[in-house]
C-alpha cells in the first residue's frame, strides 16, 4: 500500500513525453532564441556577462578602475581565496561543505613559519609540513563525516574552533615573525609581471576545472552529490570520494594559508576569520548547490571575481570597508533567490 500511495504522489512530476515532439516541431527562428537562452542558462556565461557589465559600469563612474594596476591588485587580493574555492567547490559538488577553511589557513601558515623560524628547517620541508597539517585537518573532517556520520556543519564547525585554537595556543596569540626573505618571494614576487600567487591560483584552478570536467576520479563527485544512494548502488565508493574531497579542501586551504604567510612574511594566528562564508558564497553564486551534484570550479572562481569587483567598487567609491558584509550578503541571497525563481519557472513551463 505504501507503494501505491507513493506512485500516486510521484505521478504528478513525471515529465510529459510530448515535450520531445514539441521541440522538433519548433521553428528555426525560435531555435536561435532558445540557443541564446540556453547559453545564458549556463551559469559561467551568465557570470561572465554580469562581470563585464559591472566592469563597464565601474569604468564609467571611476577613472581609477580601468587600469592594469587595479586589475592586478584585485586579482592578487582574491588569488589566495581562489585556491580555497577549488577545494570548497569539490566538497559542495559532493553535497558537503567545510567551515574550517579559514582556521586551517591560519594554522598551516603558522606551522610553516614556525618550522622555518624556530625549527630552522629548509623552506620546502616546512611547506610540506604545513600542507600535511591541512591534509590532517581535512582528513579528520572526512573521517568524522563519513565514518561516524556527523553532519558536516557540526564536524567542520568543530574543526574550525580546534584549528583556530591550536593557532592561538601555540603562539600565545603573537604572530610568528622573521620569515626568511627568500621565502617571501612566493607571496610577493612576480614572474613576467604577474604576481606569483596569481600564477599559482591560475594553475590550480585550470587543473582542477579540467579534472572535474574530464577526470574519472573527480567526476565521481557529481555522482555522489547528485544521488548518494544511486551512486552507492552503481558501485561508487561514496565514503572514499567524500573523504578525498575533505582532504583536498584541507590541502588547498593550507596552500592558500602558506602563500598568505609568505606575502605578509609572518604567520598571524588571528587571520582569515570569516573567510569561509565568503568562499561558500562565491561557490554558490557561481553555480554550486548546497544540496550537491552541481557546480564547476570556473563558475565558483567567477563568483569570487564578481564579489572581489564589488568590494573593489566600494573602495573606489570611498565606502567604508566595514559595509562589505552587507553587500556580500545581499549578493548571495539575491543570486540564490533568482536561481530558485528561474528553476521554478522551468519546472512549471
Amino acid at each position, binding site marked *: *500500500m*505504501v507503494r501505491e*500511495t507513493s506512485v500516486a504522489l510521484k505521478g504528478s512530476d513525471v*515529465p510529459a*513525453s510530448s515535450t520531445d515532439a514539441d521541440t522538433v516541431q519548433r521553428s528555426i527562428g525560435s531555435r536561435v532564441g532558445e540557443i541564446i537562452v540556453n547559453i545564458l542558462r549556463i551559469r559561467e556565461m551568465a557570470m561572465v556577462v554580469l562581470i563585464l557589465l559591472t566592469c563597464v559600469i565601474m569604468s564609467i563612474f571611476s577613472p581609477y578602475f580601468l587600469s592594469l594596476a587595479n586589475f592586478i591588485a584585485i586579482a592578487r587580493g582574491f588569488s589566495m581565496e581562489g585556491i580555497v574555492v577549488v577545494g570548497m567547490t569539490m566538497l559542495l559538488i559532493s553535497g558537503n561543505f567545510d567551515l574550517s577553511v579559514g582556521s586551517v589557513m591560519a594554522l598551516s601558515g603558522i606551522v610553516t613559519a614556525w618550522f622555518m623560524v624556530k625549527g630552522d628547517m629548509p623552506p620546502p620541508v616546512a611547506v610540506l609540513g604545513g600542507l600535511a597539517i591541512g591534509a590532517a585537518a581535512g582528513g579528520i573532517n572526512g573521517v568524522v563525516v563519513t565514518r561516524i556520520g556527523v553532519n558536516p556543519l557540526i564536524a567542520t564547525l568543530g574543526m574550525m574552533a580546534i584549528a583556530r585554537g591550536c593557532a592561538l595556543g601555540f603562539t600565545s596569540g603573537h604572530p610568528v615573525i622573521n620569515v626568511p626573505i627568500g621565502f617571501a618571494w612566493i607571496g610577493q614576487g612576480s614572474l613576467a609581471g604577474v604576481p606569483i600567487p596569481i600564477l599559482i591560483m591560475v594553475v590550480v584552478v585550470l587543473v582542477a576545472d579540467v*579534472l572535474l570536467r574530464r577526470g574519472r576520479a573527480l567526476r565521481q563527485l557529481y*555522482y555522489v552529490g*547528485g*544521488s548518494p544512494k544511486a551512486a552507492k548502488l552503481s*558501485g561508487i565508493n561514496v565514503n572514499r570520494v567524500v573523504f578525498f574531497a575533505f582532504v583536498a579542501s584541507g590541502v588547498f586551504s593550507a596552500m592558500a594559508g602558506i602563500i598568505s604567510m609568505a606575502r605578509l612574511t609572518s604567520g598571524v594566528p588571528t587571520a582569515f576569520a570569516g573567510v569561509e562564508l565568503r568562499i561558500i558564497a562565491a561557490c554558490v553564486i557561481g553555480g554550486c548547490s548546497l544540496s550537491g551534484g552541481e557546480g564547476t570550479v570556473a563558475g565558483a572562481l567567477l563568483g569570487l571575481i564578481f564579489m572581489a569587483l564589488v568590494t573593489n567598487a566600494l573602495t573606489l567609491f570611498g565606502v567604508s570597508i566595514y559595509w562589505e558584509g552587507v553587500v556580500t550578503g545581499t549578493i548571495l541571497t539575491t543570486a540564490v533567490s533568482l536561481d530558485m525563481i528561474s528553476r521554478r519557472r522551468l519546472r512549471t513551463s
Partner: protein
Amino acid sequence: MTALIKAHKITKAFPGTLALDQVEFELLPGEIHALVGENGAGKSTLMLIMAGVYPPDGGELVVEGQPVKLRDPNHAQRLGISTVFQELALAPNMSVAENVFTHAQPVNGAGLVRFEEMFSATERALEVFGIKVNPRAPLRRYSVAVQQIVEIARAIQRQARALILDEPTSAIGERETERLSQVLRMLRDRGVGIIYVSHKLDEVFAISDRITVLKDGKLVGTVRTADTSPEAVVHMMVGRELDQLFPPRNGGQEDTVLEVRNLCGPGYTNVSLDIRSGKVLGVFGLTGAGRTELARGIFGIEPITGGNILIFGRPVKITDPRKAMNEGIAYIPEDRKQDGLFLEMSLLDNVAATCLRALSGPVFMHGSKGDALARDAIGKLMIKARGVAQRVSSLSGGNQQKVLFAKWLARNPKVLIADEPTRGTDVGAKAEIHTLLRKLAKEGAAVVMISSELPEVLGMSDRVAVMREGRLVALLDRNQATEERVAAYALGASGDGAAAYERTDNE
C-alpha cells in the same frame, strides 16, 4: 440508516493511469467495512480521497447526508473522519502522551496543558490494547508496534464517527492484532463505522461485516462477509483476462548461475532459490512480502544475516554492491528516482556511472568511448532523447527506465535483477521493457523480475517464485502458475496457509 460516508462515482486520474473509475463505496454506522484489492487496484487512492488527502477529479463525497468537498485531512477530521495512515505520522522525540493527544490536549483555565490528566488518559487508552508504557517517555524508545498502536489510539481518542485504518497490522504482532480487533468490535458496537484496508484476507474475514473489492480502479462489488469465502474474494480480486501480449519464451540451454541457500536477512528468512541463465524468474508477492529486501540482500546493500550465496557453485561473500557487480550481478532498483538515476545529470553520465573505469584512461575519461556507449544505448533500447547530453529528469518515465537498464547493460551482467521494472511506465514502454528482458535472457543472462502485477509475472516468467511475509511460499513452473494459484499463495488464502510450500520445479 444514513451512511457515514458515501462515495458516489468517484474518479481520479494520475498522469498515465486512471486510478479510480466511477467507484461507489458506502460506510454505514456500526459496521467494519473491509476494502481489498491487488496492489494498484486503487484502494489507497480511494482511502486517501475519503481522508481528505486528494480531491477527486469527478464524483461526489457525501458525509452523513451532506455533500462535501474535503479540503485537507484536518477538514475530514472535523467532520468526524479519522484516518490512521500506514506511514507513521508521529513525533518520535515527544512523549507518548503528547503523541496520543496531538489535538485536543486537556488544558486548565489559564490555557496551560494539564499534563497529569493527559498522562493518565494515555495510560488508560493504551491499556485497552494490553500494553503498558510510560506516557512521559519519548516515543522513540518504543518499538514500531507500540508506535503503530499509539497512532491508532490517537485516532480513537479523537471520538471519530468514521475511522479509516490503512494496513493497521502491518507492523504489529499477533497479540496486538487480537487486541486491536477487540477494540474495533467495541467501537463498532458503539456505532462507529470503520474502513479496514488490508490485503491480509484471514484478518479481513475475521473482523469485517462487509467487503468491497476494487480491481484496476473499478468497483468489482461489495459483499457481506458472511455470504462469501476467501476463494471467491480472491477470484474477484484477480479474475481478469490476459489482455497484454508478451514476447514468446525461449527454450535452450539453462545453467544455474546464482544460487541462494537458506538466505536470511532483514525482511526475509530461509529463502532458497536458484537462478538460471536463459530464463526469466518472476518473483511475486504483496508489498512487504520481502521481495525487494531479498534482492537488496543478494546485491549486498543490506547485509545478510544467514545462509549462502553461490555463483556457478562457488560460495561468495557479497558485502557491498561493488562486490556484487564484480560477480556479474546487476540490480535495477524499484525506486528509480531515488536509488537508480542521477536525475540532474546527462544521459551519458548516467549510462557511464557503472563503468567509469572502463571508460577512462589513468586520469581522463575517454569522451568518445562514453559517447559511443550512450549512443549505442539510445539505438538499442530505442530511448527517445534529443541526444546523449539531455538531462535524465526531462525524459518520460519509460525512457528513464530504459536509461537505467542501459546503465546496467553496459556491464554485460550475468544476473540481472529488475525490481518492478515497468512501474510507472505506459503500455508501449512496458512492452518494450518486456521484450528487452526476454532478449537478455535469450542472450544467456539469468533474469529475475520482481513485480506486483500478476499478469506481468505470469506472462513473462519461465518460473514464478511467490513470497509472503518474508518467506518463499511457492516456486511454480509456468505450467502450474495460474492467476488464482499464485494470488492464493501470495495472500495466504491457499487452504493450508503458509505451511503449504509448493515446489513444482521439474528438476
